[in-house]
């Protein structure tokens, strides 16, 4: 197991270096001048101002040297300085990541609970009305555009029904709880700050559900298909023939082998969740990395774009590693293979 994890980690490091190279090349290929994007219409006309900007962010160096300097700094954990916030990119990401992680985790929990439940029900009631209904709903989940769903949910649950707030992470003016994990919901719970917890819970529901909609649809469809595949096996018929209760058959003999593709799809879903946060965070004014990435891209803030790309790459690598480990726990044949 240790050598298995070691191999994966080495591959992961190489992948991150490769991604840093690709991200660097791509961000520099984008037409447009970061100085022009950062400086105003008057400032850009002043050569001294432009020169000061270029020198400050190392843009006056040749491209190959910029990359080597970046790589050297990266090894030391330095992601550079954001041209937009003029703060270290690492500090910016550390500030914004917990809010995104909180939202993505809430979405993944909702996706798993709802998606698994709907998938199991659909498989059990195969080709009956309930199955058809769930299949239509799951199709809707994967095909409705996130921004449309976000706006529609806001109009219904915020404007028409007045049940949920549609902006931010907490009520305006409310103090954040003491910083422990950086996740407001978790920190308010840990510090017993119930008023803040209530506000945080209210604020996260709508963005998390909207973000989860696509993943719910995906997990539902995969769970149904995977369950049906396992349900067709001889050993399931044998278990039923032995007179085992249906619940035991389903949860002990069907669900576990059916979980392997579901874990895969959940790992992959994290990618769509992370990219989905850009839209969701912007529409719901969620103070996370999605908003930071979006604004950085618009401003051609190359260090910030690079930093976010690398952090997301690392998250992918780690999640894939966890998925691989989970595979081998569920099905030891994978590890041996």
């Amino acid at each position, binding site marked *: 197991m240790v050598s298995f994890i070691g191999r994966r980690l080495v591959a992961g490091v190489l992948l991150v270096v490769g991604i840093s190279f690709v991200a660097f090349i791509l961000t520099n290929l984008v*037409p447009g001048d970061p100085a022009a994007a950062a400086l105003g219409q008057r400032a850009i006309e002043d050569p001294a*101002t432009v020169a000061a900007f270029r020198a400050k962010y190392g843009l006056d160096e040749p491209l190959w040297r910029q990359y080597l300097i970046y790589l050297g700094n990266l090894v030391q954990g330095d992601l550079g300085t954001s041209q937009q916030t*003029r703060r270290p990119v690492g500090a910016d990401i550390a500030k914004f990541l917990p809010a995104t992680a909180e939202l993505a985790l809430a979405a993944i929990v909702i996706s798993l609970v709802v998606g698994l439940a709907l998938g199991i029900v659909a498989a059990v009631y195969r080709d009956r009305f309930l199955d058809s209904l769930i299949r239509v709903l799951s199709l809707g989940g994967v095909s409705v555009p996130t921004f449309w769903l976000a706006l529609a949910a806001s109009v219904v649950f915020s*404007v028409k029904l007045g049940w949920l707030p549609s*902006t*931010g992470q907490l009520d305006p003016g409310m103090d954040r709880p003491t910083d422990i994990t950086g996740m407001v919901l978790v920190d308010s719970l840990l510090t017993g700050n119930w008023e803040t917890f209530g506000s945080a819970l209210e604020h996260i529901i709508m963005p998390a559900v909207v973000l989860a909609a696509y993943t719910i649809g995906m997990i539902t469809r995969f769970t149904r298909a995977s369950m049906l595949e396992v349900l067709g096996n001889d050993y399931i018929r044998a278990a039923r023939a032995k007179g085992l209760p249906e619940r035991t058959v389903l949860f002990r003999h069907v669900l576990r082998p059916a979980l392997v593709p579901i874990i895969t799809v959940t790992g992959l879903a994290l990618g769509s969740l992370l990219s989905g946060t850009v839209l969701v965070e912007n529409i719901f004014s969620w103070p996370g990395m999605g908003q930071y990435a979006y604004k950085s891209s618009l401003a051609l803030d190359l260090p910030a774009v690079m930093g976010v790309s690398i952090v997301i790459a690392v998250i992918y690598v780690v999640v894939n590693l966890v998925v691989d480990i989970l595979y081998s726990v569920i099905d030891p044949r994978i590890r041996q293979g």
Partner: protein
Amino acid sequence: MVLAACGGGSEENSSSGTSGGGGASKTLVVDAVFSLKSADPAHNYEPTGQIVARALYSTLVTFAGDDLTKVVPDLASSWTTSEDGKTYTFTLNPAAKFSDGTPVTSADVVFSLNRVANVKGNPSFLMDGLTVSAPDATTVVVESATVDSAVLGKLANPSLGILNSAKAKAAGATDAADAATTDTAEQALNSESMGSGPYTLASLDLTTEVDFEINADYWGATKPTYTKVVLRNVDAAQQKNNVVTGQSQLALDLSPDQVKDLSGGEVVSNSVPSQYTFYLFTNANPEINQWTANRDFEDAIRYGIDYQSLLELAGEGSRQAAGMIPVQLAGALPDSDSITRDVEKAKASLAASGYDGSPVQVSYPSDLTQNGVSFTDMATRIQANLKEVGINVELQGAPITTVLDLARGGKQQIGLWLWGPDFPDASNYLAFGPGGVVGGKRVNWQPGSDPTIEALMAKALETTDADERVAVYQDYQRELNKGPVMSLIQPAQVFLAASSLKGLTYNLVWTVNLGELS
């Protein structure tokens, strides 16, 4: 342009706060789409940044409400102008003090203004040609290298807000000539304000939220009403929902269509011409495009555009721009000078140009929507207008950073852009004439190519009498309207507010003054 106090008549305040401390705590929530890079005045020059700086920092002089025709005292209680019009002497108000209680001195003013000049940030150009000195603790002298009627208007810009120099220096600020590389105070100024404005900075997040706390000892005549103000970065689509549901009290980025049926009851909306002028230019360099450099072709475009159709796109409250100078500034042209569409004239000009039907490119920032008007929609409509007169337009939309590069290199065949005033004075619009920042560099309209308009530009800079200035700037724009720069519309600035919010006015420089809201 007083926008509030005309709603449903609710007498309760618009706060969302609770009682606390010795008195009632009132929180104001304002939603905006952020354009914010810093809370450091020397680095701040974006629309949201101006709202922030106006709340945190006082300036030597300022404007009251939406009136840009007259500067009024702020830190300076009075001032005089020398006979040659180049030297301004300000006397500081002895009551003026920073939020930590220390008095504002002339040394603070000199330090702050020199720092803006030397730090080489976006607003540094405001100090071009100006030198500042302090003969004594309460007197500030600003000397201009040339006669410049815009000096007082520039000094009212929040980017020239005055810092507590002792605190700023302790945080790494410097006004030395090499401040561009040695000043390290920006981060400190992004976490703590060091000004004398009606509010202090509680917290700042450039992408999500800025929180203000009342400056309890604010020395100015109008005391701030709210104990806390939250300025949030909210998507334009959500801003309306938030005001309607009471989650916020003011939204700044809605389009006229979004608020069409909303006024009355708990909310009030108003649409007025914004600070921006949308314009189009045809490149005067025949090497870029032989047709756009042709004066007859230029006329065919001018008279081929259906300005009314652009106004329909921009919605209620927008207006056709008779000239480049927005209607709020002295020197703006009256509506009677607006160009009207004349298809026959456009076709005749096109025939005279010898145009062969080859495509000409209109490039524009496809990712930019200002005041609810999308550049893509506007370009598409212009394409349709010009097709009717026989001009074959090819649309080239691209992200703003890409198109800016093209524009600044003078490589756009036809450019579709907007312009907001850098300072509230008509002289800012001399940029569009031959050799100007836009006229010369983007349009390739070279100096010496139009003696009539260049004579008017020179006269405009020399003229100091207010009435004469208006006349000369109007003449300048009438000539401009015959050239390659074509003003199109001023879109509407829409405010949607809780009807109980008072004191809301639209100021071209800082949009809203949080300190005036009650």
